[in-house]
Every structure is written in structure tokens, then in C-alpha cells.
């Protein structure tokens, strides 16, 4: 029971804090201030915001009102409110990919917040890349997101399974290093008659589908020899999404859809978690929530048997510049920072700038965010060094072995040499919509992977031209952490 746990934790936290700070004066004093935060419908993220809100209220006497919108409405809601210069929201929580669209309307983070212990504690992948836009900081990460690999240790350590696997595939059953191994394992455990299937990923339109696809493709397209060329050529802004690396990724993504439960095509990430926690699948990829939910005995049939690892990779990566496959001496994982973790920012028109940033500080402080990270249902995954370093914090929900693997996978992914950044571009929705549509066709077998991706590439190039190629190129380079061209 997700919420029950959450409730208990919040209450205990609240009681503990109340006891220690019962008579503390409001400092800084924001009594009379009510901050309105736009967020998606809870419990994910919204409940983390409420958790932070309670803390902040205790500290400053200010109030926080969390307003929740359906995920699919959050972007239009924020856009309409920002473009109308409407002072409804003092803070907005959002996906990093939307940042480019929002930047003109956001205020910069106070310089004082951009240093110090808490600042340095934030993982560099967030602090130096996702939170930055054209050299400036407009937002603060409040959640860390990277795709990792989850598997069932009971199956993987079963000697009978190990022998059978080795006999069939000629190598040891272990967390996969390559996507081919990933598919082999899925195929091996595909046993519909026993209620066990290979893997679970999200395949539904509007159900976080394309991030899973990107995870597959990242292994073949995020080339360290030509950085930032995963989605577009950073020199010309030509769409790369139909190159052989992407096609291979898509082929494997489609293959994975056939090695999952029968309704896998209708899975969003929520169903993935349910399938993992229900013990229906042997392995899975997805965000950190999967591990936390699968570890919770109240909602999981496999608690205590959850293993985690970095995403599979590849030793061959497509080079967009030379238009050739580059060979690497060893398998190079390209953990994909899918979505990139929720961020929170302060619109310029907000009336309580100072208070808003103070709330951000409290919300993302190591203590409050650390508590949120281990609470199932907040949707908050590690994004600070202190989150992954503090094993003791996690022992409440994980066994020591689980905790080690889980935190190891999270930390290794974020700090991975070849970590793949998610796409961030103005007009993001226009770009991803066509991906979703074509993915749907390819998954349904209505079109070939190559044709589907060609269609996407054509539309991407058209959109880039419509929005202004130079402008988009500059934005894309900023998003990928590349210096401005010339």
C-alpha cells in the first residue's frame, strides 16, 4: 500500500519535526504569503511538493498551495499561463524538455543559491547540464531521472535457470551488458503458460513510450566521438533519428514489445511497475520508481528479490559525422537520462519571487529530498550525491544487497561517462508527437522501422525549418551542453 506507507512516513516526519521546532520563530518570516505551485496530479511529484510544503510552512509560516493538473494538461496549462503573463503560479514544476519553451518567462535562480554545500551536493549531470540553459540557471532539479535496469534476483540466481540459459545461449545468465543479451533473457523467460513474461516496457502513446525507445537507441547513437549527435547533427541540425543506429534501436524496442505480457502495447510506466511488482516479468527497464515499488512488500510480490543495474549498452555506435559504425573495445553503456527528472522554477510575473526561491531551497534540501526519495509514491528519485551515498536512509525499504545494487545503478548511470541526455528543444511537443505516432504504427506492424523513422526525420526537419534552423540549432547545442557554434 503505497499511500499508507507514505502517510505513515509523512506523519512521523511531521511529528518529529513538529516536536523539535514547535516554538521556532518564522525564519525567514513569510507568514501571510501563499505560494501556488503548478504540478501534475498526485501522488507522484505533487506529494513530494506537499511534503516540502509542510516543512517550509513550519520553517517560515508561509503557505503553499499545490495545484494539480493531469500530466497531459500540465504543459498547455503552464504555457498558457506563462504566455498570458498571468501571475497565477508562483512556481511551476515541469519536465526539463519544456524548459526551452519556458525560459523567456522564468526568473533566474538567485546567485546565492548557486553555491555552497547543498549546491555542490547536486549530481553534476543535473547541476551542470539539465538545470542550465544558455549558461544560466532558471530551474532546480527536484527529482533525478535516469533509466536503469531491474531484474528478479530469485530467477537469475536459480541454478536450474542458469544451467538452462547457458545451455541455450552459450553465456552466463546475468544482468545483460548488451541489448541483445537483454532480449535473449526476455525470450528465455517468456513463459505465458506459467504467468511469466520476459520484460516490461512502456509502449502506449502518451504513456512515456518514446523515452523507452530512446533508451534502446541511445546505446547505438550516443557516440562519445561526436558528442551531442544523438538526435540532431549538432553542426547542421539535420535530424539523425532515421540513421542505422536508431533503426536498430527501434527494431529491438519492437522485439521487446513481443516479449512482454499480452497487453504490453497498452503499458505506460504505471503498468510496467505493476507488472514488475506483480512478479509477471523477469526483467524490465525504467525509472528508479520501479525498484522502490518492487521492494515494498505491501504492493509487491517480489520484495527482497529485486536487482538493479545500469542499462545495457553496445560496442558499436553510429557516428553521425562519418556516417559509419564506430567500433569500441568494450561495451559502452549509454545510460539515458530519460525525462531528466522534474524541475521546479519561478515565473517572472510571480509576486513572491524571494519566498518562492526559498521554498525551492527547502524542497530540494538534502534532508527533505532525501526523505522524499525513499518514500514510494513521491516519484522522487536520487539526484543528489547524498541520496545515493546514504545507505542507511535506504535500509528502511531495501535489503542491504538490494540497496547496494539500486543505488549503485543510479549513481553509475548518472555519473556514467557516456550518459545520454534527453532532447530539449523549443517546440518539443511538435517533435515528440510525430515520434509517438510513428512508433505506434511501427509497433502495430503497419510500417517498417526504417519507414517510420524516415517519416519522423522528415517531419523533424520540416519543423526545424519552420521554427528557424539557426535558432533551433543554438538551442539544441545548449541542451546538449555544447558551446555555441562559432
Amino acid at each position: 500500500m503505497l499511500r499508507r506507507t507514505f502517510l505513515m512516513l509523512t506523519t512521523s516526519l511531521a511529528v518529529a519535526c513538529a516536536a523539535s521546532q514547535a516554538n521556532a520563530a518564522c525564519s525567514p518570516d513569510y507568514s501571510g504569503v501563499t505560494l501556488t505551485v503548478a504540478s501534475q496530479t498526485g501522488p507522484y511529484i505533487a506529494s513530494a511538493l506537499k511534503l516540502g510544503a509542510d516543512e517550509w510552512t513550519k520553517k517560515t509560516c508561509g503557505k503553499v498551495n499545490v495545484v494539480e493538473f493531469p500530466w497531459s494538461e500540465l504543459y498547455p496549462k503552464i504555457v498558457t499561463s506563462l504566455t498570458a503573463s498571468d501571475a497565477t503560479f508562483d512556481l511551476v514544476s515541469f519536465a526539463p524538455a519544456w524548459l526551452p519553451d519556458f525560459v523567456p518567462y522564468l526568473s533566474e535562480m538567485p546567485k546565492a543559491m548557486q553555491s555552497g554545500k547543498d549546491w555542490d551536493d547536486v549530481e553534476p549531470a543535473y547541476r551542470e547540464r539539465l538545470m542550465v540553459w544558455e549558461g544560466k540557471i532558471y530551474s532546480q532539479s527536484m527529482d533525478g531521472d535516469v533509466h536503469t535496469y531491474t531484474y528478479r534476483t530469485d530467477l537469475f540466481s536459480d541454478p536450474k535457470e542458469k544451467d538452462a540459459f547457458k545451455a541455450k545461449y552459450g553465456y552466463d545468465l546475468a544482468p545483460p551488458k548488451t541489448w541483445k543479451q537483454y532480449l535473449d533473457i526476455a525470450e528465455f523467460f517468456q513463459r505465458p503458460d506459467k504467468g511469466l513474461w520476459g520484460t516490461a516496457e512502456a509502449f502506449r502513446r502518451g504513456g512515456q513510450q518514446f523515452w523507452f525507445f530512446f533508451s534502446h537507441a541511445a546505446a547505438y547513437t550516443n557516440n562519445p566521438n561526436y558528442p551531442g549527435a544523438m538526435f540532431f547533427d549538432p553542426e547542421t541540425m539535420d535530424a539523425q533519428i532515421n540513421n542505422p543506429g536508431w533503426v536498430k534501436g527501434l527494431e529491438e524496442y519492437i522485439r521487446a514489445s513481443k516479449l512482454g505480457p499480452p497487453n504490453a502495447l497498452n503499458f505506460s510506466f504505471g503498468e510496467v511497475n505493476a507488472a514488475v511488482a506483480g512478479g509477471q516479468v523477469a526483467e524490465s527497464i525504467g525509472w528508479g520508481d520501479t525498484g522502490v515499488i518492487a521492494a515494498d512488500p505491501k504492493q509487491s510480490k517480489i520484495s527482497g528479490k529485486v536487482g538493479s543495474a545500469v542499462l545495457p549498452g553496445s560496442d558499436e555506435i553510429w557516428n553521425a559525422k562519418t556516417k559509419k559504425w564506430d567500433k569500441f573495445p568494450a561495451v559502452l553503456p549509454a545510460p539515458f537520462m530519460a525525462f531528466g527528472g522534474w524541475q521546479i522554477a519561478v515565473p517572472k510575473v510571480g509576486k513572491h519571487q524571494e519566498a518562492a526561491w526559498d521554498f525551492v531551497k527547502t524542497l530540494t534540501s538534502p534532508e527533505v529530498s532525501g526523505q522524499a526519495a525513499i518514500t514510494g509514491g513521491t516519484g522522487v528519485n536520487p539526484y543528489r550525491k547524498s541520496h545515493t551515498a546514504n545507505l542507511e536512509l535506504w535500509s528502511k525499504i531495501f535489503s542491504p544487497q538490494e540497496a547496494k545494487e539500486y543505488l549503485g545503478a543510479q549513481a553509475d548511470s548518472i555519473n556514467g561517462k557516456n550518459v545520454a541526455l534527453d532532447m530539449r528543444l523549443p517546440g518539443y511537443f511538435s517533435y515528440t508527437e510525430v515520434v509517438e505516432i510513428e512508433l505506434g504504427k511501427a509497433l502495430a506492424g503497419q510500417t517498417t522501422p526504417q519507414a517510420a523513422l524516415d517519416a519522423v526525420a522528415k517531419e523533424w526537419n520540416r519543423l526545424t525549418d519552420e521554427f528557424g534552423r539557426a535558432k533551433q540549432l543554438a538551442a539544441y547545442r545548449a541542451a546538449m551542453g555544447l558551446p555555441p557554434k562559432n
Partner: protein
Amino acid sequence: MSGQGLTGLSTLSRRLVALGVLAWCLITAFPLYWVVVTAFKTPPGVVGGPTYIPFVDFTPTLQPFIDLYQGIRGEFFRTFLNSTIVGLSAAAMATAIGAMAAYALVRFEFRVRLGAGLIFFLLALGGYLLFSNNLGFTRAQALLLAFPIALVIAIIANRLPLPGPILGNEDILFWFVSQRMFPPIVTAFALYLLYTEIGRLGFQLIDSYVGLTLCYVAFSLPIVVWLMRDFFEAIPIEVEEAAMVDNVPSWRIFLGIVVPMSMNGLLATFMITLAFVWNEFLFALFLTNSKWQTLPILVAGQNSQRGDEWWAISAAALVAIIPMMIMAGLLSRMMRSGLLLGAIK
């Protein structure tokens, strides 16, 4: 009862017909039953596959409702209150002014020259373009200037002997009803822009009671006018004439005689309008953002980013549905006494 009393049918076919209706009832009822039972399930109870009867194949829990009450899935209580306040007042206002208009269309004669209508539209359009593009006004200012000017000129023009056909009451009625034909999607967005522009002039309409209610009143009016016209036409005119001869002023005839006489029709219309407002999604989505969110937004939001949590969705849906269930009961009672007959002649 009229006509075909199934007398021509054998007992067997009579039973078959009854069976068919029963089947349709089951089809209708099952999903509702399903929501009710699912709302009392625990997460594993849902994920583990379908279960049907509480206490027999699963143990019911109140947890989903406790979650709702505690606001873990959004501010349910306040949203419910918002829906109630907006729903009741918008339905009441729409019924009131819609009924007045319907009465006027039934009992008074109106003549509008098509030319005057065109003048209004062209002046409003042209004025809007002129003020906003050439004279540097904002959209809202341009509109607020162009609209009354166009209206006044059109009213004056209506008194002139313009060429072209003259529209009567039936045409005005059609104009009202045809408002329902325009796809709501663009109306919603344009209305959002209008509201924000007016908001810049210092009168907040977005996320306000007035803005949302006004919009619902406007979009309920076509239904109200259409339904109420038929109810009013069913009232014997002599009753009103008797009052006229008795020197009862028109407004008093309407309030003191017509309204009480068509009370059932008004109630039915009110309830239908309430259901429309209560369930409306698109306008609520665009015109509210925090204080005045309504239930459908919250319910839709239960379909959250991280997948379906059916127990919670069911509980939320149930809260939104129950008032409508009560209304269905009331309406069906009215239906039984044949009160809705007047609506469809």
C-alpha cells in the same frame, strides 16, 4: 399507455423482449457496479485480476476514500464544492435567462433584418481588426470597443428598411440552438485568450467564479432555450390572457403564472443543465487553474503519468457520479409522470 401493448405478440416473444431489455440493463449496470466494487479494493486486489463480490472474493477497504478525503489525490473536497457551486449557480442562471428568452420567443413577436445581423457581424469583425491591427489597441480593448459599437449600429439599422429577408422567432431560435454546433475546442481556447486579455484590463475572469459560470451559462443556453420553448408552448395561452385581462403586468404573468405552471419543465431543464455543467471537461480545463478547478479535471487527472491506479480512479469517479445518480433517480420519476413529454413534441 399508447399503442402496441405487445398484444400481438405471443407469450414467448413477450418474454424474449423482456429478456432483451434485461440484457441491456445489465450492460448498462455492470460498468457502474464495477466502479463501485473497484473503489473498495486494495491495489493488489485490483492487479491480481478481476474480483466481483465484496466479502466473497475480496475484502473491501475504505482506503481509496480515505485517500480522497485526506487530499492525497488532489483537493477533492474543495473541488467537489467548486463543482457544486458552479454547477448549481450556472444551471440556475442558465435556466432563468434561458427560460426568459424561450418565453419571449414563444409569446412575443421578434423581427430581425438579416441585413442588420450582417452589419453587426461585419462591423464587429472589421472594428476588431481595425482597432487591434491599425490603432494599436490590445485584443480585449479592440473587442470591447468594436462589440458595443457594432451592436448599437446594428440595432439602429434594424429599424431601417434594409433589403433582404426578415428573420422571425423561428430563426432566432435556430440561431440560439446552432450555437451548440460550433466545435467547442476552439471556442475554449479563444475564450481563454479573451479572458486573459480582460484580466489584463484588471478584471480577472480566468480561474474565477464569474468567468467559469458565465461561460457555462452561455453554453447551456441553447439547450435551455430549446427545451423550455416546448414547455412554454404547451401552456394554454388563455391562462396568460386571463391574467392580461386582469391587468397583471407581463413580468408578473411570467413569474407568478408561467413559471409555477412550468415548474416541472424548469426543474428537468435545470437538472439536465446541471448534469452538463457538472460533467464538462474542456472549458473547465482551460478556464480554471487552481481555485476553481472542477471534478472532471480532477477525475481525468487520476489517469496520472505513472499509469492507472484503478482503485483510486474508481473512488474518484464514484464521487463524481453519485450526485448524478441521485439526479437520474429524480429525473426518471419525472419521466414516469410524463413531464418530459412537452420537451419533444
